[in-house]
């Protein structure tokens, strides 16, 4: 089935993505096949391809709206969209569920998998090669003693097994995050060597203002675009490269 599709890249109805992460894969691997993306793809605070996504049509993750586009293929994410996917499948639309990988081995496999589905194995290989080149080669084991935490809106930390955890470990840090929230006072008491926060959004919220509390001044803080840690993809490797240099 996959081989057939790869051999016969049809453009008739195109591909619809119903998930922010699959939006980004589609823009990177097969922009010419896009029928529609989610509105989230254009939001620079969560999408790493916001500028590139702006030119494509948008569709809400709603079965009726998607059916009108008569797509050949619908990509849905690991979570959510279950009812929409079921309706689409019942109407004979091909739906592919794409995992959101939480570590670099998973990201490599996902890139190859989705490139195959979209009939673009060469682009998949190129993105994988570029990502491997961007990941720093860690030879200095002593850095494993350096403690870091990803501290996001509302004080939420990246816990073991999460994408943020993989990014910290790939950059040579020991992650002290638990996956729950960490109060500002607990963070300052824990004294991590590095605190990774989201870059300031254009418009404020109490959740994101916490990351700019003046009490953080005495910790080493690095701000990353939140989109880099939203989806398991090449941007996670950019995040590693950025914090490993600190």
């Amino acid at each position: 089935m996959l081989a057939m599709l790869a051999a016969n890249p049809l453009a008739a109805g195109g591909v619809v993505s119903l998930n922010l992460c699959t939006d980004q894969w589609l823009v990177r691997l097969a922009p010419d096949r896009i029928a529609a993306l989610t509105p989230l793809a254009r939001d620079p605070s969560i999408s790493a391809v916001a500028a590139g996504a702006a030119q494509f049509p948008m569709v809400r993750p709603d079965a009726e709206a998607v059916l009108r586009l008569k797509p050949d293929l619908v990509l849905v994410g690991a979570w959510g969209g279950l009812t929409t996917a079921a309706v689409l499948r019942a109407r004979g639309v091909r739906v592919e569920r794409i995992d959101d990988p939480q570590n670099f081995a998973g990201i490599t496999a996902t890139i190859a998998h989705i490139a195959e589905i979209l009939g673009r194995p060469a682009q998949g290989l190129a993105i994988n090669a570029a990502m491997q080149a961007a990941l720093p080669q860690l030879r200095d084991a002593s850095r494993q003693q350096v403690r870091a935490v990803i501290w996001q809106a509302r004080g939420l930390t990246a816990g073991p097994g999460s994408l943020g955890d993989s990014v910290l470990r790939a950059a040579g840090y020991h992650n002290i995050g638990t996956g729950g929230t960490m109060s500002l006072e607990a963070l300052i008491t824990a004294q991590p060597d590095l605190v990774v926060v989201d870059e300031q959004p254009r418009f404020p919220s109490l959740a994101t203002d916490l990351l700019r509390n003046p009490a953080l001044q005495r910790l080493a803080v690095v701000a990353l675009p939140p989109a880099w840690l939203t989806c398991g993809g090449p941007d996670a490797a950019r995040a590693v490269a950025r914090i490993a240099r600190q």
Partner: protein
Amino acid sequence: MKRLGVLLAVAMVVSLATGPAGFGMPDTWIFVQLRLPRTLLAAIIGAGLGISGAAMQGVLRNGLADPGLLGISGCAALGSVIVYYWGISAYFAPALPLGGMAGAMLGAFALMHLAGRRPSVASLILGGLMLSSLAAALLSLALTLAPNPFALAEISLWLMGGLEDRSLLHVALAVPPILAGIAVLWRLAPGIDALALGEATAASLGFPAAKSLVLCGVGVALAVGPGCAVAGGIGFVGLMVPHLLRPFFGARPGALLAPSCLLGAGLVVCADVAARGLPLLVPTAAEPRLGVITALLGAPVLIAIARRGNL
């Protein structure tokens, strides 16, 4: 009065010693940057709420008057939300308390218009109920339209206020206008006492009711608005404080203003200690909201007032 001062001082010391890092003296940085602003804000916000409740109950001659119950806090939160989420206060920080004060001022004068100068219990409560429902609805609408995706999830933080992770900047923004509001209300004492003798007598003594009402509205807006802007709504303090004090300070309404200031401050500091202390005793994912604690304390007082028929 002296005992109230001691209560406030003890509460503030306990507050400075309590936090997620544990009970006791933390390092200087945590003390100055986190616990000091929190304690100072709790005290000043509580003082503003306490004296506002006492002044409103005196001027309106109504034991149910309270900035939270009557929707003035909700209007203040609405004003703050508008300047905050659209990034105005990010460019000009004082816009935040100014937004709170503007909202509170509008709310206060809308309430006077709705309820009239000498409102019955029913008309005051109905006017306040309408105002607070409207403010909550508009608050939700404003947060729905706000450009930050986290905004809508933050409605509960504005309706039920809290003081976690506030900084010295918040202290600098909130304290001066609240002190100004307390000063305005403080000077109302003779006018309130005169009003207790009836409007005609008060006017003959040089305290016309309309003037006291306007001064009360302005003072409450200054004393409550900036607190809502930095902490969200903290209910029931203004309602319960004067009732708790009446048995000790007598029924002369003007005499309740100063002690209400102290007890309001002490009460909010204690409630905030409880909010921070609970996660130290019971493992919870997050602290309970300060506004939840004051509501848990205040609702039984409201029920007791209603049962006694002492409105």
